[in-house]
């Protein structure tokens, strides 16, 4: 696998990042570019065709597909490549996730509404409900449902961000690499009430790459290959805006996608069996709700696990060991594969200062879109 340093990469184009991440992966796998039989590129904004990969990498006359699926873009491209291998159609496939967000001129994400959705009237909630607002709606309801005062809610969310920022300091490829305090998070300017600046992930450029093969061939490349054990994707159908029993304190897409991936991987007790996870932390509240939806914490009780340090680097189930979206930022197409990169390195014991002990099963999770219209992708990886 390969992954560039995420950040405001003013000097690098999307093509530059694709080349750097892919050549790191070639080196890591010990293969030649001409051995790639098929490729997938996951991106929301950096091009709309497979040629976006062929041109910079000079992949000549092979099948390449471009895939976009909101924040799950990278992971879904990865999933499709896995199926190409699993079906026996290809022996070796390349998956690239890439995004160049910093050329848009906006400090937040330009958001999907301005480019992608052929909305016609531009009156859809995806147009007027900005991304921080989408998840702030969940935060407001979560606080209300579980009886958290504003201060209590803000504090538990702050602890999530503080944990991620600590892990980010140990991640050389992360964008944001400094410690923050609970007090800083709670008193930061509000972006979408109740979420403040430090409840929101960064906005960065980045690219990450995986090379896939089947388990038999993998042994010929290396001993410490990592297995894909389970894949799940689930999409919402506007339940949040149509059905008045949609609760905004859990996201069913995650529950279903995780269920699919757990079933494939044979995971019955996620909290016990999963050693580490990279979960979608576009906002602190998202990560908190993910703990419950992924089966790590009982409903309404993620707060107790946050207070107990369960998800810290030295905790029972470390989450976002590399600093997550919080510190890497969220170059949308790249994020899912960046998460897989972290699990891959951890399972190989190559995570350096942030290495956790005895990691054998890891999980990645992406969630993108609007509540009720999320696309969720969950991947279980193992040694």
């Amino acid at each position, binding site marked *: 696998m390969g992954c560039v340093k995420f950040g405001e990469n003013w000097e690098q184009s999307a093509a530059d990042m694709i080349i750097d991440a892919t050549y790191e992966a070639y080196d890591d796998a010990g293969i030649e570019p001409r051995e790639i039989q098929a490729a997938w590129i996951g991106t929301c904004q950096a091009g709309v065709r497979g040629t976006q990969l062929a041109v910079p990498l000079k992949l000549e006359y092979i099948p390449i597909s471009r895939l976009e699926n909101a924040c799950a873009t990278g992971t879904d491209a990865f999933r499709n490549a896995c199926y190409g291998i699993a079906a026996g159609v290809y022996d070796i496939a390349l998956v690239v996730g890439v995004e160049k967000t910093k050329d848009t001129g906006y400090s937040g994400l330009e958001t999907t509404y301005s480019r992608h959705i052929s909305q016609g009237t531009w009156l859809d909630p995806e147009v007027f409900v900005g991304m921080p607002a989408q998840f702030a709606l969940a935060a*407001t309801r979560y606080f209300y449902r579980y009886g958290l005062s504003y201060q209590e809610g803000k504090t538990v969310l702050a602890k999530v961000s503080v944990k991620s920022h600590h892990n980010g300091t140990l991640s050389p490829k992360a964008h944001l690499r400094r410690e923050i305090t609970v007090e800083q998070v709670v008193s930061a300017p509000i972006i979408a009430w109740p979420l403040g600046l430090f409840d929101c992930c960064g906005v960065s450029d980045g690219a990450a790459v995986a090379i896939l093969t089947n388990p038999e061939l993998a042994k010929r490349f290396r001993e410490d290959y990592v297995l894909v054990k389970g894949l799940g994707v689930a999409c919402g159908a506007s339940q949040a805006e149509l059905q008045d029993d949609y609760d905004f304190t859990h996201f069913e897409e995650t529950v279903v996608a995780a269920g699919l991936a757990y079933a494939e991987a044979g995971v019955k007790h996620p909290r016990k069996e999963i050693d580490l996870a990279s979960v979608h932390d576009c906002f602190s509240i998202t990560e908190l709700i993910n703990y419950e939806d992924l089966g790590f914490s009982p409903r309404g009780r993620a707060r107790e696990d946050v207070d107990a340090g369960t998800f810290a680097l030295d905790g029972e189930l470390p989450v976002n060991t590399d600093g997550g979206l919080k510190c890497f930022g969220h170059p949308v197409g790249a994020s899912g594969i960046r998460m897989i990169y972290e699990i891959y390195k951890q399972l190989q014991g190559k995570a350096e200062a942030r290495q956790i002990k005895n990691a054998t099963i890891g999980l990645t999770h992406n969630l993108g879109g609007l509540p009720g219209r999320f696309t969720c992708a969950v991947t279980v990886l193992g040694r």
Partner: protein
Amino acid sequence: MAIGIASYGAYVPWHRLGPGTKGWSFTTEKAIANFDEDSITMAVAAGCNCLDGWSREKIEALYFASTTPPYREKSNSTLISAALDLPSETLGVDFSSSIRAGTIALQTAVNAVKGGTRQVLVTAADMRVPQPGSELEPAIGDGAAALIIANDNVVAELEDSCTLSHEMLDVWRAEGDVHMRSWEDRFVVEEGFLKVLPQTVIKLLDRNKLNPKDITKVALYAPDPRRHNEIVRKLGFDPKNQVQDPLLNGVGNTGTACALITFIAALEKAKPGDRILLANYGDGADAFLFRVTEEIVKRRNHREVRSYVESKKILSEYETYAVWRGLINKAPPTRRPPFRTPSPSALHREENKNLRFQGTKCKQCGYPQFPPQRICSRCHAKDDFEAYRFSDRRATVFTYTMDRLAPTLDPPLVVCVIDFEGGGRMFSIMTDRDIDRLEIGMCVEMTFRRFYTSEGIHNYFWKCMPVRA
């Protein structure tokens, strides 16, 4: 056959400029439309108020009177007609140019009903922008009125009316002008308002062999409070008992809507048998004599002018108003992509959804849904729905946020999820709200607003707002 007013309802926006506003140098208070309001949205608000509990089937025409119609070419009345969910056979007519257009529309509606039209919904709204600091600024306010003219079950029967045309330049606005211009006050008042309006009123009274004391209430237009006092005195009405307060201080001179709002306020207090005189001025004058009927007691379920006047928010800074009216081109709080131009073909296709605010109610499971669906979100039945209007339904807030990143002229953007009484929910933007008084479970009502304008296309849609008291 008694022709007259069958239903009535006014609208006054929530915001005010007044002595509590920093940068407001006048002693008067006046109502101003929010940044997302215009004459169309205010006419819709008054229309909704007037149509509350009223069957729409018999309405055959929708008149819209305004000197500030948002579209110069393209009908404004058809848009209002759609937002009010009137039948597509409704004849839409735009009356414009004169601030007397409201009563001109009323007179035309009476003539139409005499000619066989069953019911006409007359709306009048204005949102004029006086030049900052000008003599007109303290007096000009924003508001709307709506009346249904019919030939049965009228609450006030029209006994007689008369009109007088008078060509003069007193207050005017030419093509391309943002603000009104006016001539010397002495000329404007003495040769215009104080001359022409009394002539018309006296003619009407004389013709009906009535004295001023025979009138229960007069609803008189005047450009400002001082001139109102003068006209009352000149006509010999008792200011204490006979005169309906035209709200010139409090709401302001609302142009085409002004005299009609005053008339509606008089109807709201009227008793059967009362005689109400309505008189309006602008490029001439109109005067109407109404006799209140027994029906008045049945038609009192709408929102009164008084409650609109009492429910208000004083803007803390004049600058906010200046930004809303485009008098100051203030940068947005954050750099965000520009709004995209809506597609007219998509707007046309989605008229029922965006303007009529119709969702669908599943005939199989009965669940109402917005936006309209073809496959039921609950039971998955296909193409088995009936249209279901959400605009007159109240809702409660399920969750909300205040987005400080969103581009809006009234930050923060309050985004919420609301649950309608009777079922159904939607993501909605909340307007006319106090951000310190937001809470889960609060009750909201729906209001038709202009989301934004791009390439001359006003993109209208429904927002929610806390229920006006």
